[in-house]
């Protein structure tokens, strides 16, 4: 029987907390992390709401003990905070003792610094150090160095909003195939004008709190976050007598084959991703106890994803909710933070509420779980659906 790939540690930093414990406490008490933007001076500041991490870059640098002349982007800073927590949680004292890899997802990379200093680069060399921190792989390299991950597999995945889910999937496959004994998987994305303006152009940013699966949803709130999981082989778990938090039971990735940014009307890609994940997990749809939906609160996503859920689960749709009202849409990191939330749901036997929901959508009868609900959970399915039709599903189990 396929029990899946063991998860032995997790770490997270988001708009609702700076570690796993704080995130859980916000989730069960219904504390949203959505507010007006304070750390980026954008002309859209009164037209959008975001999920910001409380700490400034300076505070993060101090916590991490990084010298002030560093060239860390905010993506790298928050990524390192979450990755370190995951390593600590997994009780890893000597990372070099086993063949350990790092797969990190990001879409923003060092764009926050580039947009801040772009014109300045031409005038003086004061901030040119950030040019090298621009590319997506830089934050991964920095995290790898700080963790001491060397001479194995260190790579970056950038497939829009499904990136971190794909990092988890890739990591799980590397463990299953025996290429690595241990792998740190997840992602980090900070807020930037680049993403604010980009999503603004697409006219999918809400000017108020995002409301997934609501008839009157107005779009998404962007958020920043980082989250990582530690996956370990069965042999390592047995040898070190490791505590297993949960398992990566199944995963699937599919191409929606529809449009560069929009999802297909009937959620073809999402349907395929969920079906593939169920097949890998060797589970029937009725075995899923809870769906952590992608649920971005855009008109297009929620309709497409809702229809896909109906196609897979027919008239027996399990409890589902989107946690985007808490954190905002954290883009490449979303699959990572929602993996942490799925594991927290399993550990505590609790379905997190889909906040801000009032009016059911007219296209279908399914409704998200709006109140916190305690029930025995054995399997949680998490969707991450990305631009370019890159759709991913990961199934977690006890």
């Amino acid at each position, binding site marked *: 029987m396929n029990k899946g790939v063991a998860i032995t540690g997790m770490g997270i930093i988001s708009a609702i907390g700076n570690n796993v414990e704080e995130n859980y406490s916000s989730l069960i008490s219904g504390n949203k992390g959505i507010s007006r933007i304070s750390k980026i001076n954008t002309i859209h500041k009164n037209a959008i709401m975001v999920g910001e991490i409380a700490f400034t870059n300076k505070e993060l640098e101090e916590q991490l003990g990084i010298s002030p002349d560093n060239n860390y982007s905010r993506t790298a800073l928050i990524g390192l905070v979450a990755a370190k927590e995951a390593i600590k949680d997994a009780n890893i004292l000597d990372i070099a003792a086993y063949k350990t890899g790092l797969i990190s997802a990001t879409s923003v990379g060092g764009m926050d610094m580039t947009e801040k200093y772009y014109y300045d680069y031409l005038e003086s060399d004061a901030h040119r150090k950030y040019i090298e921190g621009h590319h997506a792989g830089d934050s991964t390299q920095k995290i790898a160095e700080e963790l001491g991950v060397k001479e194995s597999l260190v790579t970056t995945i950038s497939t829009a909003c499904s990136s971190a889910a794909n990092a988890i999937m890739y990591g799980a496959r590397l463990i299953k195939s025996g290429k690595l004994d241990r792998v740190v998987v997840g992602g980090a994305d900070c807020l930037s004008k680049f993403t604010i303006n980009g999503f603004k152009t697409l006219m999918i940013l809400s000017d108020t709190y995002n409301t997934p699966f609501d008839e009157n949803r107005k779009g998404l709130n962007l958020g920043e976050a980082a989250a990582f999981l530690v996956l370990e082989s069965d042999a390592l778990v047995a040898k070190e007598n490791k505590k297993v938090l949960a398992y990566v039971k199944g995963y699937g990735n599919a191409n929606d084959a529809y*449009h560069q940014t929009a999802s297909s009307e009937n959620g073809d890609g999402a349907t395929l991703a969920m079906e593939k994940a169920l097949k890998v997990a060797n589970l029937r749809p009725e075995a899923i106890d809870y769906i952590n939906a992608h649920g971005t609160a855009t008109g297009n996503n929620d309709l497409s994803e809702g229809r896909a859920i109906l196609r897979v689960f027919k008239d027996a749709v399990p409890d589902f909710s989107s946690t985007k009202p808490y954190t905002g849409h954290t883009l490449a990191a979303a699959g990572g933070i929602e993996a942490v939330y799925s594991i927290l749901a399993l550990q505590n036997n609790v379905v997190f509420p889909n906040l801000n929901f009032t009016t059911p959508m007219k296209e279908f009868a399914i409704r998200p779980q709006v109140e916190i609900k305690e029930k025995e959970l054995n399997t949680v399915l998490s969707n991450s659906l990305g631009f370019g039709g890159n759709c991913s599903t990961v199934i977690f189990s006890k």
Partner: protein
Amino acid sequence: MLNGELLYKGSEEEPFADFIKMAYKNLETDYSKFFKMDSLSKLAFLGADVLLKHENVVPEMEENIALVFSNNASSLDTDRKYQKSIEDNDNFYPSPAVFVYTLPNICMGEISIKHKLYSENSFFIFENFNPDYLYAYSAGLIEENKAEKVLCGWVNVDKEEYTAFLYLVTKEKTEIPHTIKEINSRY
């Protein structure tokens, strides 16, 4: 050219934009989305379209055909166009319609949309045409049952220089063996 047979020939002097438009007309490709594509997508799309049509691939079948493409200019041709649209402060217009093509793998997306391919796809950037890699990657996809067929090749556009070389690998053996030597001889 399709299997050694000339399908359409443009004139030597002709700019790419005219060539590809005439090729589209001559090959009787009826697909209105073609006109909004960038050069790389147009080239890859037309190449794939003639090949898949010849192989009787119809979208309704939703075949499991993986796409494995490569080139050395990535999406530079479109990147330059996009850069031009934002470098002049007085004439600043970052068009989302151009921006979406500033990635090379978008051309595979266009092919997937037309032919309803929900399959595996990867785009590699190599210095030069790399048949060894393409061979190993596509053979792997077929061996591991990730795909029934693999549409493979090299699609490159850099200013007025352009090349498209595509071939279809199938699970069933055909008269053309899938070997590195054979790929090289046809490139």
